[in-house]
């Protein structure tokens, strides 16, 4: 049986797809058989972030509707050989994802993989509900900013009431907070909500903090999951998050700004 992890947020543009790409790549790099599913029907982008956009032939909806087999639709990652991508359909309606159809595909994947990572679309509509419905765990991606935090709280409420685990009265979906686009300098200046602030408001355990970094855009430009930028702070922060997801203890890093000396502050800028 695979562990099903949904990457969700409510708000758009906070880093769900970036996170899905990195977490699935990180899990696979550690030898776990992993598949990452794009649930954003009509607006697929995971294929671009994972650099397999030109290899998409069949998609998730084709499999649900019996127009292709799972094997035909799954794309094997070129960098990590235990990683597969199931792309979203670019042309269908979101409603093509039925609860029964999604369940059938997830059950089939469950027999072959250790981890199923579900990349949720933004919002709280059908696509997002389908992405989280079968989840065992949820990575709630949040930016230190008011609208993102509020939407994250909303999605937590939905996880607690509308997931399969909630409906069946099973143990609740295990929730993890992943704070992205974190800028410790701005936090120090009192301009940005701190990790502690967001933890206090959302009251769920912290999986990791990804610092705001140029590397993230550079990586997505090239279709490279950030976690493979192993020398970068953001890449290492994702690596730590994956380790914690697997139950390892890792101290949090990149949460405070590098102390700058007097001269660098004077001449290089704050």
């Amino acid at each position, binding site marked *: 049986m695979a562990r099903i992890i949904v990457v969700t947020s409510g708000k758009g543009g906070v880093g769900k797809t970036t996170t899905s790409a990195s977490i699935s790549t990180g899990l696979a790099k550690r030898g776990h058989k992993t598949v990452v599913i794009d649930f954003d029907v009509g607006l697929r982008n995971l294929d671009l972030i994972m650099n397999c956009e030109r290899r998409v032939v069949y998609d998730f909806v084709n499999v649900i509707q019996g127009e292709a087999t799972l094997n035909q639709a799954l794309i094997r990652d070129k960098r990590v050989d235990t990683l597969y991508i199931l792309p979203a359909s670019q042309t269908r309606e979101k409603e093509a994802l039925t609860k029964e159809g999604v369940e059938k595909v997830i059950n089939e994947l469950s027999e072959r993989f250790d981890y199923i990572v579900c990349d949720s679309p933004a919002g709280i509509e059908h696509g997002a509900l389908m992405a989280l419905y079968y989840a065992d765990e949820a990575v709630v991606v949040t930016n230190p900013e008011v609208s993102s935090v509020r939407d994250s709280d909303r999605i937590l409420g939905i996880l607690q*009431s509308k997931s399969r685990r909630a409906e069946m009265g099973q143990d609740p979906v295990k929730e993890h907070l992943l704070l992205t686009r974190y800028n410790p300098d701005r936090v120090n200046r009192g301009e940005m909500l701190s990790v502690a602030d967001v933890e206090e*408001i959302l009251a769920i355990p912290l999986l990791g903090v990804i610092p705001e970094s140029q590397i993230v855009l550079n990586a997505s430009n090239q279709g490279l999951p950030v976690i493979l930028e192993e020398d970068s702070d953001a890449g290492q922060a994702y690596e730590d998050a994956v380790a914690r997801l697997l139950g390892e203890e890792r101290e949090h890093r990149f949460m405070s700004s590098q102390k700058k000396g007097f001269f660098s502050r004077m001449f290089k800028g704050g």
Partner: protein
Amino acid sequence: MSFFDYFKSKKDNRTASVAKERLQIIVAHERGQREQPDYLPALQKELLEVIRKYVQISDDMVQVEVDRNDSCSVLELNVTLPEK
């Protein structure tokens, strides 16, 4: 920050505390609504029927809410009676 900016009096940009305060209020409020018991709509409907035995009122003239405090919950019932 350049050399001269360093000495300039800084405009107060410490808005994070404002954000935190606003979030705490709105999140608490929205959680309260989320946790409303699911029998409320039925309760409201039956209350309406009972009241209608005595006074003619429309659907939107009865409001039912549950306020939760640490120690107890208060069922708040607001009935607007028509003017005679």
